[in-house]
């Protein structure tokens, strides 16, 4: 069975052509990591999470490595450069001393991260002393200023691209809070001044400089000695800085691999209210299923990308043809021809905009009135001045009166009724949780709703209803297993995270597959708490009674015919399968002499998939036999 990883994640209802799901990256980030490589970075240590001592240098390196691995998935179009300073060797375009730009083949200094870069950077600590070397070069007597050089190099690297389209940042890792400490007098003042000026120049060019200070266990990094001036901290910011920096370092390591999207208007539409009164709106996709990236087909021999060519062949004559403009639908023993234009004309039942039809109380919006992810709408005054005012007025009325609007959305792909649900802004300490605006919820038509609840109605006896006592027990249970701070998107998609992890492991030739923590599994520990167990037990007793065996009681069997059939088939297969000596057949290469039905006995008996061609079946059997 050929499994397409894309299929696994694909939503059946996804229409890949629909512009809804198209995404585009636009604005970029350029980042230069400046890592202090002075001997002090190697001699100072901190206890790590598992109790071992780690050097500051190691912390910085692993932080960057983690960050690169996340970035290559999340924002692979961003460009990075890594530059060490206080080094013995030098490598940089300006040929400045004491600074070494780390890079790998097929890559510019400031460029998109590559697997090679990540891989080589992962083992940089081993070769560091040999290839780059650590040497603190800001010493009295020499005019060298490696920090100045590093800033200069970073600024030069970031000259690429315009500040309008790219976000430019320098991230500085150091544990030296007083870089010019060993120098005295005029020389010190001079160096301090030039370095600060260099930093200011960079900031003037739209480059932001961020500091990630590493503190000694016994002595905290003193920002006010020098760096507060460099990064421009004042007053309260100064006091806040150290705790927030520690958090930042942690955040860099713990980032979720999540493809980032830039805010983009999906479509500009109008909402026509009545009497030709139309307001202007922008729609945004705030929630869309994230899929693993697109598949590129490769030639397995050369690993070069392939391009797909589509050709149309007439089934009657075998002639190669252009993409036909006509479609047909068999109907009443005839083929009815429809042109593509006709089809789109049929779908054009309304303009591509929203038409307000009226309002209903929120209770009319049932839980099953849903088909697709909602779309967010926010007003705009760009073309029609006054739109925002009307929108806000309507939104407030709808929130206060607990009503939603019903509108018709005449999109070209599927014109349909939508519910516009007003949402007030919700702000928490961390920022905006819910933006203010309306959510457009796509409503089903009558043919999209199925009356499945009624299929199994029991007309003779009436359906069992819980008694108050049973409901009370259920309520007690619900109180016990309460997720207090549940937030809708607190879980990472384990399938997707696994995909990214596998991709990384393969790209970097990592030996073992990283384990992904599946956050979606229930909290077994919590479930085993005596209070919970007791509540479950009581509820169970009240609805199931005593001596109830869940496994054996499988309904009245009316509808389990299919499963019974399946069961008999499996038993039969197991019986048949026992008639063959599979390992023998496999060893002698006689599997291919068996029929497909015979091969399927084995597969069914061992609960393996039975799809595919004969060769596939054989190879599956061989794999299962461990040959």
């Amino acid at each position, binding site marked *: 069975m050929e499994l397409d990883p894309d299929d696994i994640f694909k939503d059946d209802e996804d229409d890949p052509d629909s512009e809804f799901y198209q995404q585009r990256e636009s604005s970029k980030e350029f980042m230069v990591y400046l890592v202090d490589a002075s001997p002090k970075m190697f001699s100072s240590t901190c206890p790590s999470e598992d109790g071992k001592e780690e050097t500051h240098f190691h912390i910085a390196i692993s932080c960057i490595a983690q960050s690169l691995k996340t970035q290559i998935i999340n924002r692979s179009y961003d460009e990075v450069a890594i530059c060490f300073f206080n080094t013995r060797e030098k490598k940089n375009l300006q040929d400045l001393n004491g600074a070494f730009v780390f890079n790998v083949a097929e890559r510019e200094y400031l460029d998109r991260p590559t697997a090679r870069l990540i891989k080589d950077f992962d083992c940089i600590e081993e070769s560091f002393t040999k290839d780059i070397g650590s040497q603190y070069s800001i010493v009295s007597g020499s005019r060298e200023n490696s920090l100045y050089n590093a800033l200069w190099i970073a600024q030069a690297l970031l000259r690429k691209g315009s500040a309008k389209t790219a976000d430019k940042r320098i991230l500085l890792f150091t544990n030296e809070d007083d870089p010019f400490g060993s120098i005295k007098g005029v020389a010190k003042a001079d160096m301090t001044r030039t370095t600060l000026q260099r930093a200011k120049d960079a900031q003037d060019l739209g480059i932001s400089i961020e500091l990630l200070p590493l503190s000694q266990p016994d002595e905290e990094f003193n920002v006010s000695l020098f760096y507060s001036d460099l990064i421009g901290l004042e007053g309260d910011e100064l006091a806040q800085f150290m705790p927030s920096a520690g958090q930042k370092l942690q955040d860099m390591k713990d980032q979720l691999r999540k*493809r980032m999207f830039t805010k983009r208007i999906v479509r500009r539409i109008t909402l026509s*209210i009545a009497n030709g009164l139309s307001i202007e709106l922008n729609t945004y996709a705030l929630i869309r299923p994230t899929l693993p990236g697109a598949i590129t087909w490769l030639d397995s021999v050369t690993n070069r990308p392939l391009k797909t060519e589509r050709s149309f062949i007439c089934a009657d004559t075998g002639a190669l043809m252009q993409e036909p403009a006509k479609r047909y639908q068999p109907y009443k023993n005839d083929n009815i021809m429809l042109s593509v234009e006709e089809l789109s004309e049929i779908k054009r039942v309304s303009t591509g905009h929203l038409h307000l039809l009226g309002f209903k109380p929120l209770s009319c919006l049932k839980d099953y009135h849903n088909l697709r992810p909602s779309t967010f709408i926010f007003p705009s005054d760009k073309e029609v001045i006054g739109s925002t*005012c009307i929108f806000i007025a309507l939104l407030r009325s709808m929130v206060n009166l607990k009503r939603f609007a019903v509108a018709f959305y005449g999109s070209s792909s599927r014109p349909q009724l939508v519910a516009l649900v007003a949402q007030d802004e919700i702000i928490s300490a961390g920022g905006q949780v819910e933006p203010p605006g309306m959510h457009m919820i796509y409503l089903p038509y009558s043919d999209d709703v199925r009356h499945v609840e009624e299929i199994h109605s029991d007309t003779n006896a009436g359906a069992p209803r819980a008694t108050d006592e049973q409901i009370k027990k259920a309520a007690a249970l619900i109180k016990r297993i309460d997720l207090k701070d549940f937030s809708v998107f607190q879980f990472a998609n384990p399938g997707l995270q696994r995909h990214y992890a596998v991709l990384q492991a393969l790209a970097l030739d990592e030996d073992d597959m990283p384990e992904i923590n599946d956050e979606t599994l229930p909290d077994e520990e919590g479930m085993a708490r005596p209070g919970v167990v007791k509540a479950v037990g009581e509820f169970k007793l009240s609805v199931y009674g005593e001596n109830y065996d869940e496994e054996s009681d499988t309904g009245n069997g009316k509808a389990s015919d299919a499963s019974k059939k399946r069961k008999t088939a499996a038993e039969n297969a197991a019986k048949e399968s026992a008639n063959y000596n599979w390992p023998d057949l496999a060893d002698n290469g006689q599997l291919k002499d068996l029929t497909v039905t015979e091969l399927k006995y084995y597969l069914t008996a061992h609960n393996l998939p039975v799809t595919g061609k004969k060769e596939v079946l054989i190879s599956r059997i061989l794999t299962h036999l461990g040959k």
Partner: protein
Amino acid sequence: MARNKEGLVLLLDVGPTMYSVLPEIKKVCSMLIQKKLIYGKFDEVGVVVFGTQETDNELTKEVGGYEHVVVLRNIKVVDGDLVDAFQELPRGNFDGDYLDAIVVGMDMLIKKYQATNKGKKRLCLITNALCPIKDSCEGTKEDQVNTIAAQMSAHGMKMESVIVRGRLCGGGDQRIMAENDRLLNLFSEKTSARAVYVESPTALLGAVKTRNISPVTIFRGDLELGSKMKIKVWVYKKTSEEKFPTLKKYSDKAPPTDRFATHEVKVDYEYKSVEDPNKVVPPEQRIKGYRYGPQVVPISSAEWDAVKFKPEKSVKLLGFTDASNIMRHYYMKDVNVFIPEPGNARAALAVSALARAMKEMNKVAILRCVWRQGQGSVVVGVLTPNISEKDSTPDSFYFNVLPFAEDVREFQFPSFSSFPASWQPNEQQQEAADNLVKMLDLAPSAKQEALLPDFTPNPVLERFYRHLELKSKHPDAAVPPLDETLKTITEADPDLLSEKKNVIDAFYKSFELKENPRLKKSSKRLLEKKPSGSDEDYRDTTNALAVKPVKVEKIGDSSPVQDFEAMMSRRDSPDWVGKAIQDMKNKIYSLVENSYDGDNHGKALECLLALRKGCILEQEPKQFNDFLHHLFNVRQEKKLRNFCESLIPKGLTLISKSEAIDSSCSWRVRFALNLKGIIFYIYIDRLLLIISEKWNCSGLDYEYKAVNLAKGEQFSTEFEQLNPLRYVPVLVDGDVVVSDSLAILLYLEEKYPQRALLPDDPRRKALNLQVASVVCSSIQPLHMLALAKSIEEKVGPEEGLLWAQSSIEKGFFALEKLVKDFATRFATGEALYMADVFLAPQIATVVMRFNIDMSNFPILSRVYESYKTVPEFRASSPEAQPDAGS
């Protein structure tokens, strides 16, 4: 297929009180049959009407009674005639007895199928149930219904009743209506029957299930509440989009005489190597790759199978939370329903207890679901209670998928409070909005909720099936307009609007909307409705005022560029142009002279740019070129070096000029280069064009050298080597050498994607290439000088021109036809594309040399006029090229 066929009997009330809804009944029944013709070709349908004057059914013959019930059609396989049959639905003039009709329908089903076809027998009753049913001698009406319902269950029949009420049926006897309602509901209780009430024609269209889809479970198994307790559930889809049918592609290749032709089109995919397009890679040699940064990582299916995420099939409870924690807009997909395992009373009890407790406490449950083994992904979603209102139906849950952290995009939006005060509604406006939201009510308490999704048909599908039916009769039928009844879905109900007119008017008056005046006129407008004519006029006059020419007589200090342009455009005397150029030169010179540390350079550059443009427009290239030379000559002594170096990146190069022999080939290449904004240089008779990035950075020195070189012999020989044919242009870009204008243009398009010359739309792209090809191969070669000359020699002195003229005219007629549906401002639309790059020089050359009467080609003449206004085109004309000879 055949064993799944459904047997359906439609029981239609056609009594006098039903007249008003008969059109809708016709529509919905036709739709039902039409869908069956496509999706259930083997289904069998019978039609019974009641309330007729006549009586025609088997029961009346056999046992008597059952009057005013007519079997319009016995149960047989659906066909086109049935669709037509509904068009002539009889109108009865008796009060129909629906119970009689039900019995007749049952009798038909029993006679046709006996005990077979269990569960696939269906009765569909449409009535207003306004008329009383007859009393019977065999007990009360309730008893009768009970007996019939028992029979129905025994034969495995289902019944669906659509009861038309509200404003659709006018008034009726409340007592009779109540009795009938009770009786019909008794059916629902006693057998698998469903009764729905509709109050609008739209709802009637939506209430009848026109397509039967047998539901399939997506999961059967345990809902695990921890490890200690399990509830057996079945999971179905509750909503699922009914898609627009996917139509097959039609092939017209088979000869019309071939009656067995399938007309199908097979779509074949081939994977080819990017480097070698002739190499087809067999499917087994393909491997999937995923992007990892700039690289693509290959992963074979086997590898992927071994390492991918493999959760166990299970549905586990994670916990409960407040319903308010889950906002409605987080629901991701279509909805599932969890029903307790059928026949398992304990499971039903457990679900019922949980659902009711959740409802009372306003809680929802969060679940983690893996529907089937080997699924590869998990789903986290929310379970909400669905308390059943019908005694026979068990309580159940709805399940909605929730997003994962990766699926949420945290875009920030401004708070409304941060908007300016003019954007905030005032109290009076807020009140108007409140009233609108309150009064434009689709679910008033007295009436049935309008546009209930469960009763709203899909207007697009309705239109499609109607169109299909029309086409089956008249193959040329046009797409019908949207059905009037269905317009209440796509547009606001006019009745509601007129009823609430004062509220809407008040709302309208409270707010003011106007178009943003700062927007350019050309930008695409969202508003369908243009503002009233007076506004438009007003703006036009203001614009006219703004640009009213002030007669400029000299170039001032504040806005030299504008002054210069104004002077250049003065048409009252020819001397103004010369004066403007001279003044501008002086201005630039003084700006540069008096510049301290480059502070005036920016302004000077602007002026120089304007001067260059003006000189090109007025065809005074020498004026500009001489001035530029002069500037360079003085730069050594006057520290103007910086200034001069900044000229090149701004495109301030010499204006070039040359005479053309047959120049449209290289002209079009220059045109394309100009359009794309590529800096290039021309060697030798405009035929050798060189692109070099070096010139962008290294200043003018290099260029001067190049010009000098161009005069030398060595370049001529080199040119000959590059281009043995000599009469086509050659493009040199780094170490790439391309000759032939079409090849060059295609190369440029690939290498320099900026300002694309080929549109993305394949149709327009093809059109552009066609135009290019027609010009290249069918027009231009035929009027080459060499050819004309040889014709003149062989045929006669006049023949050369005639031959050229006729071949050009032939070509132009073809072009005219080709672009007729696309040409607006330019040949293929509003923007310049490759077709224009070819057409413009072609027309220009031909007009100059062959004396062609362009009035025969209105479209080409029109677009040619547009070309003349394009600066890039003018700058690429032979007249504007550097004089290679001087």
